[in-house]
């Protein structure tokens, strides 16, 4: 049997397993919007742990991580630095959001915000921001899946076909089982990607250099500049501290504001589970260590690649590894891609319907679920179109969307903690912050210092939010208290299953 046939069979087997798990997941979930979008608010700890971890770490981490380590060296360590910082505030915010959402029947971020800041315009703006940020993210995941499959089959399965196969399966299980499929498949995929990253991360340095320490000794003696912070920029020049530090800050602020993560607060069975998920998240974050080791292993073995994102598949193929290892690597990379992609597609469609359409058009439950399903297909198709058409710099788009997504943080914090915040304050702040971010993105020459444009957005956003709020009338007291001081829901109040 040819190598590529054996590898392809392993991929097919893995995809089949994922599909089976995803389809089984929907059983027992109610046929309601609550069931499809928020899993009847019944996710337990183990599922939440893997949903959170596997959703955060995408194809970007599995393929892009080694690529960054390989081409930009220490610059990649910013990714190590922001995860726990970004997740820690969720220990306080997550349970509060969940409590309010359960009481008021919310399933999306915009519903949560407009629950306190009543405005259909705000709902629409948040829906548009979310979708504009989610689509390039989905595209990136699809390309990741396609790249891996194309590389390991020596191009016999081209990118467009590989991406279509992997995401056809995602589409089926998300359509059938909704967010429950995302939960169960992410558990499977999370286990896969962690196990495979650690095995490869330890195996490759040992096979190539005789150990992790000797590998770094070799790199230090030949490329001493590579491992010094803040590393290199995309063109191989030394990066600057402002860029490095502000990448950490903006990513930490934006992390839990991504709609596909934020919305998972509404899926947890109780608040205790959200807290435990945050507490254990750092253990998932350590997954980046072997990922970077894989990338560093390539430094002295692979000559400069035109596309550093290919480092991992390239290295794997160069080394004449056993077929099983290559097959497992594919499964790991596909896991990383699909576990984020499914959550993204599901979130994009749910947000479009719940926040973009429903405030304006009356829909019953059946119509809502139908429309969400239709839009999942549309979002998938749009992302697929971008994934197979060349020439769009997605990584740049993704990094920019982080700046925009981070602008959702001040409204969320204000909704939960600041009694004096008002609807006009939130809207004007959001627009000012978003506008500033885009301005400095399109005209970086205007930046006074080389900080991330999203950080400038926040610097403008927060004072505007405060000032406009203070100038406009105080909100109704009961409404404010239901957010700032939500009545505790004991376990007895939860719908029994």
């Amino acid at each position, binding site marked *: 049997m040819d190598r590529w046939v054996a590898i392809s069979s392993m991929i097919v087997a893995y995809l089949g397993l994922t599909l089976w798990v995803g389809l089984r997941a929907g059983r027992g979930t109610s046929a309601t919007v609550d069931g499809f979008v928020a899993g009847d608010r019944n996710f337990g700890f183990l599922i939440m742990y893997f949903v959170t971890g596997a959703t955060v770490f995408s194809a970007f981490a599995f393929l892009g991580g080694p690529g960054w380590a390989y081409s930009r060296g*220490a610059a990649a360590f910013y990714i190590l630095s922001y995860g*726990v910082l970004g997740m*820690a505030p969720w220990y306080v915010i997550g349970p509060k959001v969940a409590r309010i959402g359960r009481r008021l029947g919310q399933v999306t971020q915009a519903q949560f915000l407009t629950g306190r800041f009543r405005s259909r315009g705000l709902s629409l703006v948040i829906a548009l921001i979310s979708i504009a940020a989610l689509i390039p993210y989905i595209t990136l995941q699809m390309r990741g899946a396609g790249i891996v499959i194309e590389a390991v089959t020596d191009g016999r399965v081209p990118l467009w076909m590989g991406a279509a196969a992997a995401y056809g399966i995602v589409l089926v299980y998300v359509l059938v089982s909704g967010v429950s499929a995302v939960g169960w498949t992410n558990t499977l995929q999370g286990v896969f990607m962690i196990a495979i990253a650690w095995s490869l991360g330890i195996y490759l340095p040992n096979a190539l250099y005789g150990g*992790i320490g000797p590998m*770094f*000794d070799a790199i230090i003696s030949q490329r001493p500049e590579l*491992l010094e912070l803040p590393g290199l920029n995309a063109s191989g020049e030394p990066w600057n501290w402002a860029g490095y*530090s502000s990448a950490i*800050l903006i990513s930490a602020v934006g992390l839990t504001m991504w709609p596909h993560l934020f919305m998972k607060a509404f899926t947890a069975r109780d608040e205790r589970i959200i807290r435990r998920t945050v507490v254990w998240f750092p253990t998932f974050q350590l997954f980046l260590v072997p990922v970077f080791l894989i990338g560093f292993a390539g430094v002295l073995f692979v000559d400069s690649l035109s596309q550093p994102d290919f480092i991992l598949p390239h290295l794997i193929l160069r080394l004449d590894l056993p077929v099983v290892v290559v097959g497992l690597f594919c499964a790991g990379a596909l896991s990383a891609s699909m576990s984020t992609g499914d959550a993204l597609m599901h979130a994009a469609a749910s947000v479009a319907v719940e926040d973009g359409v429903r405030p304006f058009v009356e829909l019953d439950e059946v119509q809502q679920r139908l429309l969400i399903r239709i839009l999942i297909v549309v979002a998938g198709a749009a992302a697929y179109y971008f994934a197979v058409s060349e020439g769009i710099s997605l990584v740049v788009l993704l990094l920019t969307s982080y700046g925009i997504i981070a602008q959702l943080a001040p409204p969320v914090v204000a909704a939960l903690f600041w009694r004096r915040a008002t609807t006009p304050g939130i809207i004007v702040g959001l627009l000012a912050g978003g506008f500033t971010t885009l301005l400095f993105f399109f005209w970086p020459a205007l930046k006074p210092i080389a900080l991330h444009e999203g950080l400038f957005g926040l610097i403008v956003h927060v004072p505007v939010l405060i000032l406009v709020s203070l100038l406009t009338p105080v909100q109704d007291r009961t409404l404010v208290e239901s957010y700032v001081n939500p009545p505790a829901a004991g376990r007895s109040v939860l719908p029994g299953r």
Partner: protein
Amino acid sequence: MIRSLIRRLAIGVFLLNVLAVTWPVVSLFRSSEPLVFGLPLSMAWPIAWILIGFVMLLVLDHFEDRDRGE
């Protein structure tokens, strides 16, 4: 009261974390050498903060949970 003490400690630790991994403090740990458990110092430093954050969250959660009486 021990719970509010632990809460303040947690806030302090995570603020310290922000300072530790960004400029200027991180520039003290910019060098690749010495190797710490086989990893360059510049990589071991953020990893150390992941572990510190993890321990802090475990401690915080222990006390939050106990006081909630669950």
